């Protein structure tokens, strides 16, 4: 990439966004539309990454990077695969009750790594499918088929089953042991999951599941900002990539005289405050170098023998202010906050790219970098390859910042609107 200091903001963003989208072009399996979790050899498909890919194709069409027909083909391939997939819930199936296993074989689409049937990752997949459905609105046989496929996939998701007789949704299920013990506790990226579950015409969330979840929220004043606490930055970005939360409020946000968009703005500022404080004294952290979120970082085997008495977390959801924090920053994370804090996000992106040009590989962000573990000659430690989630959220959030394309599509989506209303959202565009 050209020296970032010579690029206009628009040119910089365009270059990064196009390169991020390139991940899907380069890695997707054209036979079944599935996209791998990351670009390393022999990795499985992540169903969430497929969701981000589906949401990114319309962006690429609008920007002229690919033809509408190609985007349609890629989307149809994925949607047809999921429709026809093994839904028996067996150990080697693809899904159950309309949900899908987190990780799938890229060729056969069957479960790998004994992964869990994942509620949130299914929601991200379905949200991507919804975006397709809203974008491909022509009355051609293919686009009609696409909309029908999305409708079929959505209608068969049994959200009620995922409540397991309780209030809140479970996080996962395995054929070997049933529902996992973990539940959703505190604010996180699950707001999209709940909105979809509430918007279902066939198996809508029962009882007051949404309220039960929001009862676990913590409204905190941290570093002088009042916000709905969530440590990793991605929890303030993932649902927002699809839903325009500006001016719409549920009961909790009405009580706090805030909204989830403003909350993400504050969460971003808190990230910067944390980096300025840098309590663990890691290299590089400052007001222009921040972004603690789910990303890949160095793991413990790297510190063995270096005499560095610290724990390294590999791929982990890093967060502020309580960690985990091992000095790893996701360079792309500020750009995923671009709609909330355009100025400081761009400043951070520019500064990090100038200081650590090695974090862009062929113009595409590495998942994470760690300057503390770097060296003057080699630069920062940089995660190898690229991760699909990172690229997807960058494509979507840059687009929302530039044209609001995803937000516009989803604002018009009847299911999203119904889900938001059932969750108690009022006001604004709703």
């Amino acid at each position, binding site marked *: 990439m050209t020296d970032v200091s010579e690029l206009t903001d628009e040119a910089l963003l365009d270059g990064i966004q196009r390169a991020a989208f390139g991940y899907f072009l380069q890695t997707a399996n054209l036979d079944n539309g599935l996209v791998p979790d990351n670009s390393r050899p022999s990795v499985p498909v992540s169903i969430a990454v497929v969701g981000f890919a589906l949401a990114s194709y319309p962006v690429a069409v609008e920007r002229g990077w690919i033809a509408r027909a190609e985007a349609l083909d890629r989307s149809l391939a994925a949607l047809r695969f999921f429709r026809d997939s093994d839904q028996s819930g067996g150990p080697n199936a693809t899904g159950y009750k309309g949900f899908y296993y987190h990780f799938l074989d890229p060729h056969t689409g069957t479960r790998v790594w004994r992964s869990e049937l994942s509620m949130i990752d299914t929601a991200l997949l379905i949200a991507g499918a919804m975006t397709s459905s809203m974008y491909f609105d022509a009355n051609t046989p293919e686009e009609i088929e696409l909309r029908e496929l999305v409708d079929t996939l959505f209608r068969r998701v049994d959200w009620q089953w995922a409540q397991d007789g309780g209030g809140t949704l479970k996080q996962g299920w395995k054929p070997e042991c049933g529902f*996992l013990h973990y539940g959703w506790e505190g604010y996180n990226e699950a707001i999209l999951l709940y909105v979809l579950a509430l918007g279902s015409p066939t198996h809508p969330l029962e009882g007051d599941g949404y309220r039960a979840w929001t009862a676990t929220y913590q409204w905190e*004043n941290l570093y002088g900002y009042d916000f709905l606490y969530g440590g990793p930055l991605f929890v303030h970005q993932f649902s927002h990539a699809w839903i325009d939360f500006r001016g719409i409020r549920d009961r909790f946000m009405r009580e706090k005289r805030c909204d989830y968009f403003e909350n993400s703005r504050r969460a971003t500022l808190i990230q910067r405050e944390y980096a300025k404080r840098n309590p663990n004294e890691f290299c590089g952290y400052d007001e222009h170098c921040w972004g603690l979120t789910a990303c890949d970082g160095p793991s413990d085997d790297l510190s063995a023998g270096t005499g560095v008495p610290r724990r390294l977390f590999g791929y982990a959801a890093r967060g502020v202010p309580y*960690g985990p924090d091992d000095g790893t920053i996701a360079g792309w994370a500020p750009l995923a906050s671009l709609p909330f804090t355009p100025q400081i996000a761009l400043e951070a992106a520019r500064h990090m790219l100038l200081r650590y040009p090695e974090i862009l590989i062929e113009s595409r962000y590495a998942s994470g970098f760690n300057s503390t573990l770097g060296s003057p000659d080699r630069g920062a430690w940089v995660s190898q390859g690229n991760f699909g989630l990172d690229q997807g959220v960058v494509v979507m959030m840059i687009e929302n910042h530039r044209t609001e394309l995803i937000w516009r599509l989803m604002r018009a989506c009847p299911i999203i609107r119904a889900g938001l209303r059932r969750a108690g959202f009022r006001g604004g565009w709703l």
Partner: protein
Amino acid sequence: MQRYGSPGAMDPQGEYERERLENVRPPQWRNPVPAGRYSLVVVGGGPAGMVAARTAASIGAKVALVERALLGGNSLNVGCVPSKAIIRTSRLYADMRSAGHYGAENPDGIHVDFPALMQRMRRIRARISRVDSVQRLSAAGVDVFIGEAHFTGADTLSVDGTRLHFRKAVVATGARPDTPSIPGLFEAGYLTNENVFDLTELPRRLLVIGGGPLGCELAQAFSRFGARTTIVQAMPLFLPREERDAAQLLADVFTREGIEVRLNTEAVRVRFEEGQRSVDLVSDDYQCTVAVDAILTGTGRLPNVERLNLETARVDCDATTGIVVDDFLRTSNPRIYAAGDACLKHKFTHTAHASARIAVHNALSVRRRRVNMLTVPWCTYTDPEIAHVGLYVREARDQEIPVRTFTIPMHDVHRAITDGEEVGFVKIHVKERTDQIIGATIVARHAGEMINEITLAIVARIGLRTLARVIHAYPTQAEAIKKAADVCARPSGGSMVKSLLRRWARW
């Protein structure tokens, strides 16, 4: 059942143990002859029983106290006192190992002298037992009976055949470990708080079952002594009652210190083979077996209500939740009250003390006090400590109380930075749009000391803004509370006060 340690594990010949036993159960003690009808008979000589007896004696009541084992109860003998003593030593070892972090030279070859630290614990326990001695209690005017008590009627009980009549009674029999029903555990042998302090050798490998306060405190202490420690907790986080962030921080600290943390995991079977204990663990669909030398269980406590013949005294009770009491600590028999772990959900020494005072007050005077008026703080003495008082956010929201939390990470507190003790936070919860404190959680190396300021504020109904006017010595870690108060007292973004202040400043 396999036994731990040597037959002389209690070190009964030891000087300190002799002194303690002389204090809390003198071998030559002769029970007094009952003196007619007692104003108050207290059953149980733990923290609640001792306070009840002393309180009643101090106002001139004729009091008897019956204890079947050791005066001082769990807290002195097998609970707070010994655990805090060894935790102090474990902190010292942890500090020694991180000497370089403080700019000090790392000591060469740190060797943990387990017998020495246990001996220190016994010395301290013996010293504190002087306060809780039979002789002192007797000198305070209490007739002390050592023996097994059971009720023989609505106003009588028997102590090993000696009948005591009472006008009122307080049952304060405490609680005991609730051992998990894991196949093979009993046969393989296990430790609880009742025998872990008898150990004479450090187990090389220790499995702690249960991530409550006891399990967490001792897992960390034994790990710091050098035992390769694994802790299994059936829930997704330790200390399930505590704030998620507090429990998460603790899990991170444990992992960093080398404790093998297994959350969301259950021990399902134990085998004793060739001198070691093999424990099967299950977490969702993942199963494995760990081999250890000792197993410590800390999975809750059960009230001591059996063998008291409570039905004869017409006192309702439940084997799990204990003696049924009303808000005045009165049982279904109006003559009989209960206090402490035998009847309370919060099983702490300080709640035992407070409830005992209320029980005695209500039993012997006309005006009555309610137990639910108590503001009870508590603390788990891990490193960092985790202390709480009042409501959790979740509880407040369940009660439809809107909450605003003021959070100060310890890394913003100068004294915590200079002390190298930055892990933790102060979170103070107030009712939204007021400064009324409804609860707080503190995670800090000395959180137990810091929580008392918040407790005082809640009891005295001091608002958080008022705490902003209280000068706190600089630099102290408790200054975190002042910082939270300062934020609360600061005029909000669009407030009239703030705009007036701005105008004034410009003028």
